[in-house]
């Protein structure tokens, strides 16, 4: 299971364009033991992902088309698991939940219950922890792979373009889940979104509402965009919540786990010391409520703030009528 080397993410760091800056070399990043991380992984399991898997896993000797696909998916999931192992091992108190989604539904495939030994302070012996820790990782591997397989099986393979993958719904779920946990316990909550589909104009308001909510509760949204186009919605999600938006280059033969471990593993505090890739540009353009197209200049209805690409006589959202002579 752990055939992928845990440590090579350290060595390959600068390959990904990250160099550890000077301060962090001098004073090693202090582990804030009080604040453990609660990570929610959102994984897009729509056909869009399967179509593009070969871009992110090293190519293997071709046997048959079916086999490659199954292998590619497994390799992809194993790379994700490598990252999750690193995350869980770095701090005993770290917690994890994995939510998968496609065009039809959302499912929690793995929910971490935390370590029992931690809640019992008398049990300080570390060897107990080691055993339980190992158990936890094995449980993660088996449960995750099993549930993902059954999730994929239960939905038709053909993609339904018009619906789009349920990004807004999965973000809403993740936020409800995290909110409930951070109310009672002190966690630094984050969302890591592995998204492989294009933006759906219909979901614009839902995603934006989720972003504002995450911002208010200071929940980071990290984005790893596996789609071939840039996603304006997810760029804004990362930009507004202080997370990282990154789109792995397909040409490089670097395994995904390297990206995941080096970019998304550091906590909010540790990121201050690292050179995290910044976006060259954040697309703040609006969507025309009528056509769903992107607009950089347009008109907004003064009553409901709906945006339109062209001048019009009435608003089709709120029904307000505009006088002919109104100028900008």
């Amino acid at each position: 299971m752990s055939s992928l080397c845990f440590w090579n993410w350290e060595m390959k760091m600068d390959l990904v364009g990250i160099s550890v800056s000077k301060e962090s070399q001098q004073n090693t990043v202090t582990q804030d033991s009080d604040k453990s991380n609660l990570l929610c992984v959102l994984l897009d399991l729509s056909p869009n992902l399967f179509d593009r898997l070969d871009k992110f896993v090293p190519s293997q000797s071709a046997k048959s088309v079916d086999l490659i696909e199954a292998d590619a998916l497994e390799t992809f999931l194993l790379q994700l698991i490598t990252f999750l192992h690193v995350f869980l091992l770095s701090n005993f108190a770290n917690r994890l939940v994995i939510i998968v989604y496609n065009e039809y539904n959302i499912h929690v495939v793995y929910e971490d219950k935390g370590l029992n030994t931690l809640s019992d302070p008398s049990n300080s012996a570390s060897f107990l922890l080691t055993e339980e820790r190992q158990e936890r990782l094995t449980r993660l591997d088996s449960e995750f792979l099993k549930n993902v397989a059954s999730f994929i099986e239960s939905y038709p393979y053909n993609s339904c373009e018009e619906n789009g993958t349920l990004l807004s719904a999965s973000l809403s779920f993740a936020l409800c889940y995290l909110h409930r946990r951070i109310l009672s316990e002190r966690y630094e909550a984050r969302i890591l979104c592995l998204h492989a589909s294009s933006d759906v104009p219909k979901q614009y308001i839902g995603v934006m509402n989720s972003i504002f909510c995450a911002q208010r509760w200071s929940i980071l949204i990290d984005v790893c965009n596996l789609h071939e186009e840039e996603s304006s919605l997810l760029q804004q999600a990362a930009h507004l919540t202080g997370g990282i938006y990154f789109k792995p280059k397909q040409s490089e033969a670097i395994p995904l786990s390297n990206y995941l471990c080096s970019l998304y593993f550091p906590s909010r505090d540790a990121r201050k010391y690292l050179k995290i890739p910044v976006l060259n540009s954040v697309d703040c353009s609006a969507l025309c409520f009528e056509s769903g197209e992107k607009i950089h200049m347009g008109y907004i209805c003064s009553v409901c703030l709906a945006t339109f690409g062209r001048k019009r006589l009435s608003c089709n959202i709120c029904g307000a009528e505009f006088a002919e002579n109104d100028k900008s």
Partner: protein
Amino acid sequence: MDDDEKPESLTLYSWEQDIVRSWETLEEDETGKIKDLSSFERSRVKRKRKNTQQNVRRGLIRFLVLILDLSREAKETDVKPSRGEVCLSCAQKFLYSYFNENPISQLAVVVLRDGVAEKLSSMGSNPRQHSEVVKNANQKGFYGNCSLQNGLDVALSLLHSIPSYGSREVLILYNSISSCDPGDIRQTIEKLEKERIRCNVIGMAAELYILKYLAARTHGSYFVCMNESHLLELLEDFVVPSALIENNTKTALVRMGFPTLKAYKEPKVCLNDKVLRNQVFVCPRCECCYGEIPIECVLCGLILVSSSQLARSYHHLFPVANFHELEEDKYKQSHFQPNYCFACKGTFPFEGSEYFVCPNCQNIFCGICDIFIHDGLNNCPGCEIRPENRIASQTDFS
């Protein structure tokens, strides 16, 4: 709000209260961490109130003049440390929530002191700039008479030139029990009424007839606050855009630009505050650079906003439907229901759990998620998965 739900601190005037021992309301949970239940309770009360006025047309582009009375009577110490200090600190909190909820709205600050009205900041939408002047407003001290008429006149001149689609409002925090005016204040009030400017007043001292009259004539509201937490609660109500009064504003299509945030190797000068920055917003029409938006482009006059700033107001237009509360017995009878909350996956019954059902997607939520969905998230997770696609696969996970 039912009377029995009022926290005790709200029912008494601050001078009638016993000594407040806020630390005694703290509760520890079994691990010794402090539970903070007060904010949770408060948001519940607030939501109940908000729900009564869903689906109304609101003026989302607001222009507000905040008038603060810092005259002699702001030195009164019936609230601690003084009326003026409390009023300034609450105003600062109000500023932040105002711009958070209404990012493309504008605001100006006016103070009343020594018989005159002084404009501290002009119409703008930069919360930092306004809060800076409010923070420093006490440096000159609180002295002199208070003139309501002068304040209203300044507000009139500030609101006179704004576009007709904006909702024009005045919010007054009044500490005094008198007004020392140069002319007939009724004429000024008439002018405000004619200009369709809504005036809301919060009095820190006893109720005054002229303030009540002002609010009534201009379709505003007048409250007398009892203590600091009451003042904050009253101010909170003015953060949410109020319902439109018929004919108060015109509808219009407003031309706006949505600039792109670009990162440059060489820093660019922001045309507004003349600061060098590496990340700037670029005007889509004339390519001027700005460090912060919203702003009106200095060169081409285009109003630059980001689409996310507009999107902050959309939840007023598409609010989440109110959930119905389910009786516990009824819930238990219908055994086919899942035994955990649809959104947070917390198992029922946990402490203080109630059962709520969404009228559109029929999913069951816990009380915590009910508040969170309506107060913070503004999405129903169940409705986001469209019902026709919901295959009966809410299988439980282990």
